[in-house]
């Protein structure tokens, strides 16, 4: 690992990756807020899109924690592609006439459509970051991220744990119904 050592804890790629992780955390947080405010339970495909968001976030987290590396960007792109497939599939599923879609729309679009846009934007952002990230090298483990980056990482981890709890309460330790109407563990 010494061959990869650099001296600066702050780098622009690391900062931009922190913003990427903050964006993913904000998306997961917004999905949570919507779920609990309007009591709209996520369907299996919605949950798969959240899993893809988590996997994208892990790639950003690796870039923030260890410094940027092509393999980390690869994880992000693969995850975003998977998420785009799941979101695209759900968009096509509800494209038929007289289909009102799943859940209520936000700013005129359903969440799976927004998710598809987010995943495409993530792939585009990765392409830009790969272009501007000339160093393409990993920082040493000792070069700890700054306080802002650490707070964003903690927020992301807490949101992922929140999703574990929420999904367990909704689906238990089995498969979720296609159109869930109540939390499995909160059934009377």
């Amino acid at each position, binding site marked *: 690992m010494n061959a990869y050592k650099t001296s600066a804890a702050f780098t622009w790629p690391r900062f931009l990756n922190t913003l990427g992780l903050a964006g993913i955390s904000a998306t997961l947080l917004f999905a949570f807020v919507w779920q609990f405010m309007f009591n709209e339970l996520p369907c299996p495909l919605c949950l*798969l899109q*959240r899993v893809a968001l*988590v996997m994208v976030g892990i790639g950003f987290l*690796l870039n923030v924690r260890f410094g940027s590396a092509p393999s980390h960007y690869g994880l992000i792109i693969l995850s975003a592609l998977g998420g785009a497939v799941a979101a695209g599939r759900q968009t096509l599923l509800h494209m038929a006439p007289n289909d009102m879609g799943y859940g209520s729309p936000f700013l005129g679009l359903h969440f799976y459509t927004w998710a598809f846009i987010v995943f495409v934007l993530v792939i585009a952002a990765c392409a830009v970051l790969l272009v501007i990230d000339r160093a393409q090298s990993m920082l040493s483990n000792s070069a700890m991220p700054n306080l802002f980056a650490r707070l964003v990482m903690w927020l992301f981890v807490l949101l992922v744990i929140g999703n574990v709890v929420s999904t367990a309460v909704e689906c238990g330790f089995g498969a979720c119904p296609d159109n869930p109407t109540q939390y499995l563990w909160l059934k009377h």
Partner: protein
Amino acid sequence: MIMVLPFVTGAIAAWLGMRGKRSACLFAWFITFVIFIAWCAYHMTDPLTLSL
């Protein structure tokens, strides 16, 4: 299909990444990705009601 499983492995990956264990984090991410693909195959194989 245990819906919570990919979230659990994802949480483990995120935690390992936070703690500085890169290789273990990458392995946990890979497990999450495999589960994600398997769950996609399970949930996304019904025919669509439109012609493409």
